[in-house]
C-alpha cells in the first residue's frame, strides 16, 4: 500500500485545477519617524486566470510586473489582500466549519521550485533528509519517508547511492535544482509552481533540467505554472502563456497565438526585444524606450500607455477590459476591443 498517495481528481478534466479571481496584493512602504505607510506597491492588482488540468501555463513579464508575487500567492506564502482562489472546486484556505480546502491539504497538492537552488535548501541537512522532510510532516514514517526521498532522487537523475547523503554545497547548481524538484515532487503534488527554475543555470545545464521537467510532468501527471523572463524557454515549455505588466494581466492565450499573433502592443514589443540569433539579420531599433515604470504609482488607465507606440487619449482615461479574441486568447488593450474609442480598434474589427 502506498502511504501518502497522490490526491484524487475531483471535478473531472474540464474543471480548472486552479481558478484565481481578482487577486490583489499591495505592499505598504513604511517610512518617516512614525513608520507610517507612505506609499503602496501595487505588486499584484486584480489578477485572475485559470490553470487547466495537465497544462503548462507560462507566465512572462519584466521585473516588477508581479510574476513572483503571483507565484507566492499561488503557494500561499503570501496572503492576498482580496480575491479568491479555488482549487479543483474547493475554496482555498477554508476550515472544518466553513468548508473548503485547508491550507495544509492545499500545500500537499501544490508545491514550488525557486530560482535560487542554494538558498532554498537547508545547508545543514543531507539532501535526502531535505527531500524526506515534507513527507514526514505529512505523517509518513521515518523509513517510509526516506524511501520516498530516495525514489524521488532517482527520478530526477541523482543516483541515491552516490548523492543521498551529500550536502547542498557538495553539488553543482544543476544538481541542486534537481534536488529542489525532487523535494517538490515528494508529496506527489498535482500542481507545481516553477519560479524561474532554470534562470540561474548555465545553458548546457538548463537544457538538461528542461528535459527533466518535461519527463516528470508526463511520469507523474503534473500541471505546471512556469514563471520566467526568458521568452524562448517559455515558448518551448508552455501550452498557454500569460503576460503580465505592472501587476496586471495584459494578455493570455495559446502559446502559438501569443508568439505568432500577439494582440497586445506590450507582448509584441517583448517578443521583438529578443536578440536575434542571426548575425546577418540584427535588430536595428529597440521596440521600446525606457524602463518599466515603478509599480508604486502606476499610470492611470492602461498601465502600458507611457511606453506604448499606439497610446491615445482614451488609454489614459479608461482601463482596457480583457477583450475575448477567440480560441482562449484575450488581451487587455483598447485596440483589441472594437468600440473602445481607440482609432485603431475599428480597423481590427473590420
Amino acid at each position, binding site marked *: 500500500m502506498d502511504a501518502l498517495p497522490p490526491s484524487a481528481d475531483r471535478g473531472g478534466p474540464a474543471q480548472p485545477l486552479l481558478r484565481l479571481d481578482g487577486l490583489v496584493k499591495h505592499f505598504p512602504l513604511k517610512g518617516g519617524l512614525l513608520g507610517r505607510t507612505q506609499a503602496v506597491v501595487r505588486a499584484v492588482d486584480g489578477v485572475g486566470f485559470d490553470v487547466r488540468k495537465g497544462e503548462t501555463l507560462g507566465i512572462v513579464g*519584466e521585473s516588477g510586473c508581479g510574476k513572483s508575487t503571483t507565484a507566492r500567492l499561488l503557494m500561499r506564502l503570501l496572503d492576498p489582500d482580496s480575491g479568491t482562489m479555488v482549487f479543483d472546486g474547493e475554496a482555498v484556505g477554508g476550515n472544518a466549519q466553513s468548508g473548503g480546502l485547508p491550507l495544509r491539504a492545499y500545500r500537499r497538492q501544490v508545491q514550488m521550485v525557486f530560482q535560487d537552488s542554494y538558498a532554498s535548501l537547508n545547508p545543514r541537512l543531507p539532501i535526502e533528509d531535505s527531500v524526506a522532510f515534507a513527507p514526514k510532516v505529512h505523517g509518513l514514517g521515518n523509513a517510509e519517508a526516506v524511501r520516498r526521498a530516495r525514489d524521488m532522487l532517482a527520478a530526477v537523475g541523482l543516483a541515491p547511492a552516490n548523492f543521498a547523503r551529500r550536502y547542498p554545497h557538495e553539488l553543482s547548481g544543476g544538481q541542486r535544482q534537481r534536488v529542489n524538484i525532487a523535494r517538490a515532487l515528494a508529496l506527489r503534488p498535482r500542481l507545481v509552481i516553477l519560479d524561474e527554475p532554470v534562470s540561474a543555470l548555465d545553458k*548546457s545545464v538548463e*537544457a538538461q533540467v*528542461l528535459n527533466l521537467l518535461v519527463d516528470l510532468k508526463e511520469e507523474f501527471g503534473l500541471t505546471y505554472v512556469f514563471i520566467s523572463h*526568458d521568452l524562448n524557454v517559455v515558448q518551448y515549455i508552455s501550452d498557454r502563456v500569460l503576460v503580465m505588466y505592472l501587476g496586471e494581466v495584459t494578455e493570455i492565450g495559446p502559446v502559438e497565438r501569443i508568439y505568432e499573433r500577439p494582440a497586445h502592443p506590450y507582448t509584441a514589443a517583448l517578443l521583438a526585444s529578443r536578440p536575434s540569433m542571426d548575425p546577418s539579420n540584427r535588430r536595428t531599433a529597440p521596440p*521600446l524606450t*525606457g524602463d518599466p515604470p515603478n509599480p508604486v504609482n502606476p499610470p492611470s488607465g492602461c498601465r502600458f500607455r507611457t511606453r506604448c507606440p499606439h497610446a491615445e487619449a482614451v488609454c489614459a482615461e479608461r482601463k482596457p477590459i480583457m477583450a475575448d479574441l477567440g480560441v482562449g486568447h484575450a488581451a487587455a488593450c483598447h485596440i483589441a476591443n472594437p468600440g473602445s474609442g481607440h482609432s485603431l480598434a475599428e480597423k481590427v474589427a473590420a
Partner: protein
Amino acid sequence: MSLVKLRDLRVTFRTRDRTVHAVNGVDLDLAAGETLCILGESGSGKSVTLRALMRLLPRFAEVQGTVEVAGQDVTRMSESALTDLRGRDVAMIFQEPMTAMDPVFTIGQQIAETVRRHERVSRADAEARALELLELVQIPSAKRRLAAYPHELSGGLRQRAMIAVALACRPKLLLADEPTTALDATVQIQVLLLLRELQQRFNMGVIFVTHDLGVAGEIADRVAVMYAGRVVEEGPVSGLMSGPLHPYAQGLLGATVHPGMRGKRLTTIPGAPPALDKEPTACAFAPRCDRAHEPCLADVPSLREPVAGRRARCVLVPDQTAWCVSEALSPAP
C-alpha cells in the same frame, strides 16, 4: 598593430585552501574598432581573462604570459602607469552598475572625476563634458540626471550612466563584463543597440564577455568560445552561429532554446564542467563529449586553423574546405 595581444595567458588563484587554474593558456588578438565576444559558461575563465587585461585581479592571482594593450605590456606596468591607462585608454563596464558606481557621489561628479583625472581641464569644462556624455548615452533629461545619485536611477539608466563614465575619455578599448545580463528584455536590447552605435561612432575596440549566444549574435564581429580556461573555438560570429566546429560549441548551440524548438527534445551536454584544481592535461571537454577517443586524452589539443579565419581546439575537426565542416557537424556515428 593590434589593440590587444594576449599570448599564453595563465591565471592561477592560490589560497590556503585550494588552487584554481582559471585561465590555462589563452591567445587572443583584437584589432582597433573590432568587437570580440568571449562566450562561456560560469567558471570558463572569461571574466578572469577580461580582468587580466586591466590587471584588476586580486593579489593572490598569479598571472603569466603576455598581456599587451595598445602596445604596452600591462603585466610590467607600475601602479601609477596603470592608473593612467585605466579610464584613459581602457575602460570597463560591469554587470551591476549599483556596485560598480560610488553610491555617495552624483552621476555628474563621477563622470567629471574621470575626465579631470586624465585631462587638464577646469571643473566647469569637466561638468560640461559630463552633460554631453549623458546625452550621448541617451539619458532623458540629462541635465537633471547629472545631480542624481546612482540609487535614484532605474536599472537601464544606471547602466547607461556607467557607460557614460567609461566613455568619458574616449578609450580605444572598452571591456564589457556581461553588462546587459541583469537587465529586462526590453531594456537589454536598448543597451545593446546603444553599445553597438557608440562602438561604431568612436571606432572603439570592444571585448564583450557574455554567456548568452543571442547577445553575441547581436553585437560581435568575432567570437571566442571558452571552456575550462582555454579558447576552444574562435572565428567570425556568422560561422559560429551557422556551423560551430568544436563539439562544445555545437552542444552549446543545440542546448540554447530558440524559437522553433517546441515539442522537440533539447540536445544536452551531459555532466558538468571540470573542477579546475589541476590544470587539464588532456582535452578538458572529453569527459562530456560523445565522440571522445584516445587522442583526446593523450594531450591538450592544439588550437588549429581548420578553416581559413577560424580556429578550433579539437582533434576531430578535419583540416580545410567546406565539406569537412559539414562532416564535422554531422552527429556521432
